[in-house]
């Protein structure tokens, strides 16, 4: 057993003030969401090299293979006549950006939530402090937003390097992609917060939700070139709304005003509904 001096310092000595003096309660409550985000970002930083490598490697691979490889083929055939008379790379870039944002949110809203509720039970540890279920949701959205903003930033830098977008539209494109990401992420969070066991759930989401969504959301070709009876997949997909918004911003892709407005409205609805459900379910599960 160690010398009593150390214990006296920590527990006995005048140093012990008591939480009534020590804790600034209103501040702890108001900033609780930020403390959740801080903790999550600290965990992310343990993996920063792989996050960085993936953020950089992913766009480079996509742009070489699909953008340039397939692009050469498409441009030679059609001269971009069906793509609003822009090179295929330009057409593709906004979709890749929105897709990267959505994927990044998807990662953050899957296993970290299982960890919080089931594996480490870290949400319960947080909830034993001034932190509430709502703070946990807000904190995780914030930390995911932080990570995604870096990922999308890197992605955009690569797109600029490939000449796929113009510097003048970089900033609005950045935010529209992030907005699609956070809208999807909040719904994903609500869904995950109902899951008790993995049981291959996330693999199913990846294969039967994310993959078809990517393929059928006008990512690699215009949604209009799909048979009409399949276009609904794009209409409900936040990726298509984010992609189409990006195309309007990037190269002035011709679009009706009401469609552009409906993109914003639709993504906002996802955000609000997702958050509302997530607040309710996370709080409920913590109190059980």
């Amino acid at each position, binding site marked *: 057993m160690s010398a009593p001096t150390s214990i006296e310092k920590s527990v006995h000595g005048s140093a012990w003030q008591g939480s009534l003096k020590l804790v600034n309660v209103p501040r702890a409550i108001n900033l609780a969401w930020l403390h959740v985000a801080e903790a999550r970002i600290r965990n992310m930083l343990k993996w920063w090299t792989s996050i960085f490598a993936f953020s950089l490697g992913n766009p480079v691979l996509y742009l070489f293979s699909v953008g340039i490889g397939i692009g050469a083929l498409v441009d030679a055939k059609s001269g971009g006549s069906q793509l609003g008379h822009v090179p295929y790379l330009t057409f593709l870039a906004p979709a890749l950006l929105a897709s990267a944002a959505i994927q990044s949110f998807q990662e953050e809203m899957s296993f970290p939530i299982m960890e919080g509720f089931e594996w480490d039970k870290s949400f319960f540890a947080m909830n034993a*402090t001034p932190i509430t279920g709502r703070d946990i949701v807000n904190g995780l959205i914030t930390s995911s937003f932080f990570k995604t903003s870096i990922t999308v930033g890197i992605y955009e830098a690569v797109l600029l390097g490939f000449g796929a977008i113009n510097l003048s539209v970089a900033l609005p494109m950045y935010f529209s992609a992030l907005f699609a990401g956070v809208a999807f992420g909040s719904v994903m969070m609500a869904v995950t917060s109902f899951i008790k066991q993995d049981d291959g759930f996330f693999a199913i989401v990846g294969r039967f939700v994310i993959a078809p969504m990517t393929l059928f959301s006008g990512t690699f070709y215009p949604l209009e070139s799909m048979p009409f009876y399949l276009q609904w997949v794009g209409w409900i997909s936040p990726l298509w709304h984010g992609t189409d918004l990006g195309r309007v911003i990037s190269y002035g892709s011709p679009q009706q005003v009401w469609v552009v407005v409906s993109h914003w409205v639709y993504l906002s609805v996802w955000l609000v509904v997702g958050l509302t459900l997530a607040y309710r379910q996370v709080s409920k599960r913590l109190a059980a």
Partner: protein
Amino acid sequence: MTSSDEQTHMIVARGLTKTYGDFIAVDGIDFEVRKGEAFGLLGPNGAGKSTTMKMIASVSKRTGGELTILGLDPNKRGPEIRAHLGVVPQQDNLDRELKVHENLFVYGRFFGLSKKFLRTKVEELLEFAQLTEKRNSKAEELSGGMKRRLTIARGLVNEPEILMLDEPTTGLDPQARHILWDRLFRLKEQGVTLVITTHYMDEAEQLCDRLIVMDKGKIMAEGSPADLIKRYASKEVLEVRFGSSRNIEIAEQISHIGHRTEVLPDRILIYSDNGEADLQEILKLGLEPVTSLVRRSSLEDVFLRLTGRTLVE
């Protein structure tokens, strides 16, 4: 509740009830916990201890009755109350990926404590938990006893007014238990109010000034360990074993010895003021127990008396 009550009573429960659908987990219990006291909730699994703890911890809402903690209603002001609690849950919920010292630091941030304050505090807590040498290990690499000590240290980071420990030493080896008891005892001396659940009698006797014995959501008895033993048991207990097939038959023959006899599957308990003298009586009857033991009576005996069941079934 008057203001003087609020100063001395950290927790007051009146008719406290928690139901899940038709199931009544906690059935209208009354108790209060005074400042600086070590208060125990004793009972078998499913008695309602952990549910009561969750309500005090201000995470699970009561469905009936009154509960005030530090004079506040936990159903309405949970986050505010939780700022003054230290919670050590039954299962350690450390962040396995984070290092030992990071676990303490991050948890301190949840209370909004400054980084400067925490840098010193974390080192103190590491010493308190005897984990200084393990500070850079990941939490998942620690032994059970070390994890437990880290969880307790983490619960102290905000210098809580009330430290709540749910089964603090379950699953620990005897040496680890004694180290923990020593640490908790020091906290108590410091004036920290402790609320402890346990199903270990020796733990309750070691740590608690006062306790309630719970069974099926109700309070069976309340008092100090010595009080309860005096009221519900005798000074000594004589345990004799005649082999499981003969216990019942022999219990009838010796039922006049001692204050009371209790027949368990494997042994007979004789509640007595003088166990040795009663053992001689049995021997005089020509009965030869396979083994015999005279011991002080404990809370285990109190529980047996109150419920007719042993505590660890």
